[in-house]
Each structure stands twice: as structure tokens, then as C-alpha cells.
């Protein structure tokens, strides 16, 4: 049985349907991310798990217990906020020990646990400092320590790294993941940053407009997006208009050039207009020899991005991007050239229409 379970959870604020029919089953120790654009209902869902919002419908279970209407004080969830939310009047040690003190644990035990937590976040020397004497990254580590000091059943993080600068963001997210693994805490992590979600999670829940678009491993989400939204939101996406030429053989037409998809074409007939998605990194310039899918295109723009070179090409009305790895011997076409590009049958995904 799942450790954290959300069953058909919905939440509306008056007219606004913030979350609709949210279903999730997370295993003990799993790291799940909610990924989606701002306003899609990630925070609201997280706050319902924490008990700060009551669902309009549905149930929430933690370890088999229905907590839907339990007040937040009684849920034993650890929460980490974007704005750190450390108590400004308390030292780092008192912040970390707050939950234990409230639970009336003996002071020797509190002291011991606080010391453990400080060691865990590698801030042993900072116990006597006040929050305003710490950098943003340090404050967030203290907030993390404070949340896990109470040994929560579920750890909830709402965009914990958004206020930090890029370098610290990457370092701290690895640290969060390492601590989470070490302690085996079931974790829900909210972010609008796809890189964060993909690099950290066991599973990613992609959300849009209060609904789940797709749930899957980072690998599945990135390589096999099932909806147009997921494909577009996660990674860079080429959306290409095409018409079905032959359902049985998976043949399609792009700008009256024939290509083939490995995907089974279902629910369409010959002549139906469909939208395809191809990741930029799956496309390359056609060398001589066998080409599964060849397409003649005109080069419109070339952008040098360091390790990769991004080329914008056009076929009829379709503009799309292709990425090639940079190397010193790379021969690039000129803007305006007509070249042939190629991609595998498997790279061509036909998107479900919402």
C-alpha cells in the first residue's frame, strides 16, 4: 500500500478551481516532484497535504490514516518554504529544536538531536547565530534541518531553492537529495524548474491548470511525453504540423515530404491533421547513406550555446530547432542553405490532443 495517498482531491477558491481530481500514490521513501507553471495548483496541493488548506473533495491518507481534516499541528509533516521562514527571534539551534521543544522532549534529547541536525547540514559552528547573520543558502539548510528534526512522516518543500542564486541552487539541491536518501523520508517537492524536477525525483507529476498531465519517472516524462503540454513544458520541443498519409504504416507528411513514425497511429484516419513532437537533440544533419527520415529544410538561424549548437530550420510553415554537439571539426551550413536533416522513426511522437 502506498505511504502517501491522494484520492480524487480537488480544491476550489470560489470560482477558481485550483486543483481538480488529483490522484497520487507515493511509496515510503519516494521523492516525488510536482512540476508545472506558476498558478497550476502545485502549492495548493502541497498545502492540502500539510493541512493548511482543506480539500473541497477527496481524501488524503498518510501511512493508511485519513488525515484529510486533521489540523496541521497533528500531521507530523515537515515543511520547507521558499522564503525560509526561520523564526527571527531564535538562534539556529533554537529554530531546529523548536518542534522538539513544542513536543516537550527532554532538553538533553533536544540538544543531542540539534547537534545531529547541525552536523547533517554541515553547520556545526552556526548553532548560536541568528537567521539574519546567515546567507540565503545557509538559512534554507537550517529550515530543512528544522523540518526534519521532528522526524516527519512526509517532508514537503515548496520551491525551496527559488530565492537562491544558480550555483548554490545546484549544490543545495544535491544536498537535499542526499539527506533525503540517507534518512529515507517520503518527500514531495514543488518546483516550476524542469531541470530541478528531472534531476532530483524518483517520479515527477506534471501539472497544468489544476490537473495532472502526466506522472512518471524523469526518463519517461522527458522521453515519452504523453500530452502536448508535457512535451512542451519539459525540455525544448518542436511542434510540427503534419497530415496522416498511411495509418497502417505510420506514414505522415510534413510539408508534403514523407516521414515515418514508430508510434502506432490510433484514432486517426488518412488525411487527419496531427501534431508531432521531436526533441531538438534527436535531429541531426543527414550524412550520406541510409536515412530513416530525411527532410529538406532551409537554415534560418544558428546559435552557439557552448557545448551545443542550436540550429533553427524551416520546412514550409514549420519552424523547428535542432541541437548538435559542438566540436572543433564541426562543419556548419550557412544561413539560407537548403540542407537535409534526419531523425529516427522513434523520435517522432504524435501528441494526444487535449
Amino acid at each position, binding site marked *: 500500500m502506498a505511504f502517501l495517498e491522494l484520492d480524487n482531491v480537488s480544491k476550489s477558491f470560489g470560482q477558481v478551481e485550483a486543483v481538480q481530481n488529483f490522484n497520487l500514490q507515493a511509496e515510503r521513501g519516494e521523492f516525488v516532484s510536482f512540476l508545472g507553471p506558476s498558478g497550476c495548483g502545485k502549492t495548493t496541493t502541497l498545502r492540502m497535504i*500539510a493541512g493548511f488548506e482543506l480539500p473541497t473533495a477527496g481524501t488524503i491518507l498518510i501511512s493508511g490514516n485519513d488525515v484529510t481534516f486533521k489540523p496541521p*499541528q497533528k500531521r507530523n509533516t*515537515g*515543511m520547507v518554504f521558499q522564503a525560509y521562514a526561520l523564526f527571527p527571534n531564535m538562534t539556529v539551534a533554537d529554530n531546529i529544536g*523548536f518542534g522538539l521543544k*513544542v513536543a516537550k522532549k527532554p532538553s538533553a534529547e533536544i540538544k543531542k538531536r540539534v547537534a545531529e541536525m547541525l552536523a547533517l547540514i554541515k553547520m556545526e559552528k552556526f548553532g548560536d547565530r*541568528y537567521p*539574519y547573520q546567515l546567507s540565503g543558502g545557509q538559512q534554507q539548510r537550517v529550515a530543512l534541518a528544522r523540518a526534519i528534526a521532528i522526524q516527519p512522516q512526509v517532508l514537503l518543500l515548496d520551491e525551496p531553492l527559488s530565492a537562491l542564486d544558480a550555483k548554490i541552487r545546484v549544490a543545495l539541491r544535491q544536498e537535499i537529495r542526499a539527506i533525503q536518501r540517507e534518512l529515507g523520508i517520503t518527500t514531495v517537492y514543488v518546483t516550476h524548474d524542469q531541470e530541478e524536477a528531472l534531476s532530483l525525483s524518483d517520479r515527477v507529476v506534471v501539472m497544468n491548470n489544476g490537473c495532472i498531465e502526466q506522472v512518471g519517472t524523469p526518463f519517461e516524462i522527458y522521453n515519452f511525453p504523453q500530452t502536448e503540454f508535457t512535451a512542451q513544458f519539459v525540455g525544448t520541443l518542436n511542434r510540427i504540423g503534419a497530415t496522416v498519409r498511411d495509418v497502417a504504416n505510420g506514414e505522415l507528411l510534413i510539408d508534403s515530404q514523407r516521414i515515418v513514425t514508430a508510434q502506432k497511429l490510433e484514432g486517426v484516419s488518412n488525411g487527419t491533421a496531427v501534431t508531432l513532437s521531436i526533441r531538438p537533440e534527436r535531429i541531426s544533419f543527414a550524412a550520406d547513406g541510409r536515412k530513416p527520415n530525411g527532410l529538406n529544410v532551409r537554415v534560418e538561424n544558428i546559435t552557439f550555446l557552448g557545448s551545443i549548437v542550436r540550429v533553427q530550420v524551416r520546412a514550409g510553415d514549420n519552424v523547428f530547432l535542432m541541437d548538435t554537439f559542438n566540436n572543433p571539426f564541426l562543419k556548419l551550413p550557412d544561413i539560407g542553405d537548403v540542407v537535409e536533416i534526419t531523425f529516427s522513426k522513434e523520435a517522432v511522437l504524435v501528441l494526444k490532443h487535449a
Partner: protein
Amino acid sequence: MKKFPFWAWFWVVLGVLYLFLPLYGTLDFSLRMVRDQLSFAAYEVVLRDPKFAATFSYSFIMALWTILASTLLIVPTAYWVHLKLPQLRPLVELVTLLVFVVPAIVLVFGLLRIYSRPPLALTNSDLGADILLVAGYVCLSFPYMYRAVDTGLRAIDVRTLTEAAQSLGANWLTILLRVVLPNLRVAVLSGAFLTFAIVIGEYTLSVYLARPAFGPYMQLLGRTRAYEPAALAIMSLTLTWTCVGIIQLLGRGVPGQGQLAGTR
């Protein structure tokens, strides 16, 4: 070369004279009780008067009660409004400003009408009258206390701090006492000093409730003596300014977000 800003300086000097000349006059007058020399004789007379000590300490104690009552009333209220009913904030602000609309004389007659007959005949006993007085003072201090606390609440992220404490298992009382109040120390203290300054000099309420307060004593002295009231005026002014100075000082000792340096 820049022209000397004559008119700017003219207005500044005029303003300073307007404010400080009368003050200087009072000060000078208060020092001339003994003919042809400057002395603190008037101050001595005032300080020796047992009624001075009695009324001042009475008002002092009433001020403390007022501060306690208004803190207990306003901190939880302002906190709750911030957290749960932010849309009501303008309304609450309006309510606190009512004291400026309703004159103290109206307030005190209202109190007298209601509380001088059963079932709540508070004016018949000293304790009852003291309670009425403090209640009236709480009303008078309302706008100042509320403003101070409201500003303090705005300086910290109350909502998130509350939620953080809740998720750590704290109940409302714990949150109020351990999280909210300590972070409002500066705000409550500034409100308290303003309240103190108001209560010490207050006249109307205490005179109509017949309380032995400092305000009526100052009035009485003013009507019957010459030099002593001037000395008293200078003293109470100094007291008020000291209060204001302390508020300023407290405000300055705030590094970052509403942090009192002294909490260390």
C-alpha cells in the same frame, strides 16, 4: 558658485523660532522663581509636593495597566486580522481611529451614563472607577498601539512563520507567545511608550471620573501658582521627549527584519 539659499534658510529659522521661542520662554520663566537669579527653586517646590508624587505614581500605575490591557487586546486581534481576515484591515483601522472622531468628553459621559447605575455601577468604588479609567485609556491608546503592532506585523512574514510553527506541532497559544510576540517586541514597546506619554498627561477622563491622576494635578497647579506650572510643563515635556527618543533608539536597534539586537 552656488547662490546662498537665503529663502530656504529664512523659513527654517522662522520655523525653529516659532517652535522653540515659547519653549525657551517657559524654561526661562520656570527658572526665575527667586528674584534676579536663575534657580531650580520652582522645580524643588514641585518635587517636594507630596501630591506630585502621589498623582504621578497613580498615573504611572494606570499607564502600566493600560499598556498591559491594550497589548493583550491588540496583539492577538491584529495578528488574527492579518492572518485570517486581511480584507477587514481597513475596517479595523477605521475603528481604531474613532477615538479621534469622538472627543474624550463624549467618551467619559458615555462611560458615566452606563456605569454609574446598576447592573454595572463601577463608579461607586475606587477599583471600579480605576477599571473604567484604564478602559478609557485603552481606547485613547488604540490608534497608536494598533499602528505600531500593525507595522510590526507587516515587517515579518506572519503567515509563513505561523505555518512553519504549526507544521512543527505548535498550537495557537505557543505560536502567539513564542513566535509572534517576541518578534513584535520593538513594535509593542514603541506603542507602549506612546501610550505612556498619553496617559501621563491625560486630563478629561481622569477629572470626570474623579481619579487622583497627574493631568488634573497639573491643571490645578496651573490655576493657582505662577512658576511651578512652568517647571512642571518643562518636566513633562522632557519625559515625553525621552519616551519618543527611546522609541527612536529601539527602532534603530533593528537589524534586518524586525530583530531586536538585545535578544542575543
